[in-house]
């Protein structure tokens, strides 16, 4: 599977490492070169300096042949914009994006984007831990 990950933070870098070690073709995008330090030393995929809400950067990352697109930058709006470009302009089959704001996540889910909110998930998880 060819996967493009936008945002090389802790989550993005870790996901890139996992998929890469399982033999998937991973391209990871970030606007800050310094963030690529988070990639594991064994990473064999492509680390590309570029902005995921820019069509040209996405093309350079190979979005036209991508099987999946994951948006995990720190900005909710950047994530949903990139995810919508991937979905509506490039017709990527599988798209996942992170949206911290639970309300915004609800909205984009209703608009057909696979969005998840770490806020909701973590709060739920903590609550379960407390109750166990």
């Amino acid at each position: 599977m060819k996967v493009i990950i936008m945002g090389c933070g802790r989550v993005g870098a870790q996901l890139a490492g996992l998929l890469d070690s399982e033999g998937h073709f991973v391209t990871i995008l970030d606007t800050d070169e310094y963030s690529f330090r988070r990639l594991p030393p064994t990473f064999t995929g492509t680390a590309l300096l570029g902005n995921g809400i820019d069509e040209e950067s996405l093309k350079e990352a190979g979005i036209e042949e991508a099987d999946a697109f994951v948006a995990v930058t720190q900005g909710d709006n950047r994530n949903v914009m990139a995810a919508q470009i991937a979905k509506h302009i490039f017709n990527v089959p599988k798209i996942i994006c992170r949206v911290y704001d639970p309300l915004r996540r609800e909205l984009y889910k209703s608009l057909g984007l696979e969005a998840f909110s770490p806020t909701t998930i973590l709060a739920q998880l903590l609550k379960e831990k407390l109750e166990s």
Partner: protein
Amino acid sequence: MYIIIVGGGKVGYHLAKALLNEGHEILVTEKNADRNQFICDELGSVCVHGDGCEAATLAEVGTGRADMLIAVTGDDEDNLVACQVAKHKFNVPRTIARISNPKNEAIFKKLGIDVTVSSTNIILENIEEEVPTHPLTHLLTIRDKGLEIVEVKIPPDSTTVGKAVKKLSLPQGSRLALIIRKQQKPIIPKADTILQAEDQIIAVTSPESEEALRTALRGA
């Protein structure tokens, strides 16, 4: 009309001021507390401190009854999301987004934003008009029809000087609307109108045939 403006920067502030003067009911959302205070001091209590991309902020300012939402922050993605939240969550009839990257115009349209205003394009067009050697100037875009009105100047050394309009190989869908000549009344071009040096030609074209039109009028 009740109009919500997202982003109280220079554009947001002056827009709010202008629309207030026209008698509209205005509300600005601004993320920065100091900027929010400044707007309230200058324009009265028409500004709310909050993120206009968040549904909670928009609910607080009564977006459900707004006639229009205009997103003019400096970030394209924020403007996109503010408009989408307004449109899909609060059913605001009309949304307008400012965009900085002209490439986003097509994307925003595809994602359902009613109107986009590209500040970069507007500045470029204005500068183009002031550059005398510029071969083709954009005067107006008719978005719904995919047409634009442009001006082409015919330089004295152009191979088309002395040619009749019917001899020009104009691209399909392009029409010459008017010829402006020094010390003469504007002429409506006919098939046998002869082009002269320094003619200013106003034409209707599609963005795709712009280049072909320029070549047809000025020679290769």
